[in-house]
């Protein structure tokens, strides 16, 4: 007995913890056409949109997976699921530079941050958020770093073009402006912004960073 396409898709997504890209879905569901798969995805998405659903279709890192809805987070709190600790500020800064400027060498990152990043690089490597892309053709042949697919999953991006464009900081250029928009204010306070920071609402606004200064290399997986 065979299931409806949408059911087969759901079972597949349930059984696979990592996001499945469209090609994989097609391989895994060889009896379905591309359109049928798209239709099944749309139908699952619609079904999960109901307030009776605890699940959602999580579109991330070029693929799709099942995940719990953010609203369910409180209900899951008692599960005490172990997760990696939040990234430190230095790690985030380093990661941001690598993400926007990849491929980039350690020395180049250090030039931007103004500090040594050995320890931070190690952490990022061990957490699988960055990867080594090769070596730069220059004296000393330093290693080149870039972000990994795990980076996309960790931050919930489909691909690098979803990174928000780098913003200039009007606040600093025009210091007297009293009413500067909060999210543009340089943060000095050590504490994190509220969990649901609006500035993070990004993807919609994501313009693929244009000009030569913000290369957005494709993930090669």
């Amino acid at each position: 007995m065979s299931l409806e396409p949408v059911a087969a898709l759901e079972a597949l997504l349930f059984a696979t913890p990592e996001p499945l890209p469209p090609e994989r879905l097609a391989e895994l569901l060889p009896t379905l056409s591309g359109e049928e798969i798209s239709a099944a995805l749309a139908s699952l998405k619609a079904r999960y949109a109901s307030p009776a659903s605890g699940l959602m279709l999580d579109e991330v890192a070029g693929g799709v997976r099942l995940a719990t809805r953010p609203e369910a987070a409180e209900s899951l709190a008692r599960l005490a699921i172990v997760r990696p600790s939040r990234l430190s500020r230095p790690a985030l800064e380093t990661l941001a530079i690598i993400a926007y400027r990849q491929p980039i060498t350690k020395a180049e990152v250090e030039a931007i941050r103004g500090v040594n990043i050995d320890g931070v690089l190690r952490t990022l490597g061990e957490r699988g958020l960055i990867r080594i892309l090769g070596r730069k053709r220059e004296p000393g042949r330093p290693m080149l770093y870039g972000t990994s697919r795990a980076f996309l999953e960790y931050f919930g991006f489909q691909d690098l073009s979803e990174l928000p464009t780098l913003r200039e900081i009007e606040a600093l250029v025009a210091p007297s402006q009293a009413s500067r928009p909060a999210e543009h204010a340089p943060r000095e306070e050590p504490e994190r912004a509220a969990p649901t920071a609006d500035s993070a609402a990004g993807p919609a606004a994501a313009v693929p960073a244009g000009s030569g200064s913000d290369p957005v290399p494709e993930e090669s997986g």
Partner: protein
Amino acid sequence: MVYQVRLEQFEGPLDLLLHLIRIHEVDIADIPIARITEEYFRVLTEMQDLDLAVAGEFLVMAATLVYIKSKMLLPAAEGEEATIEEEDPRRPLVQALLEYQRFKTAAGDLAGFEERRRRIFGRVAPLEEAPARGPLELSLFDLLAAFQDVLKRAARRPDVEVTPRPFRVRERMVELLERLARERPLGFLGLFPADADRRTVIVTFIALLELLRQGVVRVRQASPFGEILIYPLEEA
């Protein structure tokens, strides 16, 4: 203005400078360098008073500030022939600050995304998985971490040698074996083209010696003063 700053709350000298620029409400495009330098030193001094080690990067920046300040005091274009446009000595610093600020903001964005993602839970991978045949997913970091562990374990057992062979030599050994698989025997002199640099010659020679030592290849000389020929083990 009385304020207290703690150096360790800054990610580095650029961060500290941005902080000073902001709290003093000065224009980043027109930094009053004397004043900011003074403030910068005050913070460093406070740090030292508190017996905190001031990282080298902070001192390098201090030197840069002093340098800029002195440049700005000099009369313009002295003795220089055709200084069409005297560069503002603050300019590189301002650019570095703006650049750093952009990424600091971007880091804040990432923190927001991170926070949102922490409310979403995927499924835990089954602990035992059937051996998969799918596309390989291999991280260089994982490979290196594995090697680190091997090295660490081997350190307790002096009888085995794990230290990597020098890369050039290793590479050349592999190359020689590859050539031998295609063409045998190899002429000794042919290994050293006339245009090869010293380093290449040495590396090739060491690689050959290593292969000989390991018994992977043999050399033969058909006649006294004849050419030395290199064979893979199977033959010869």
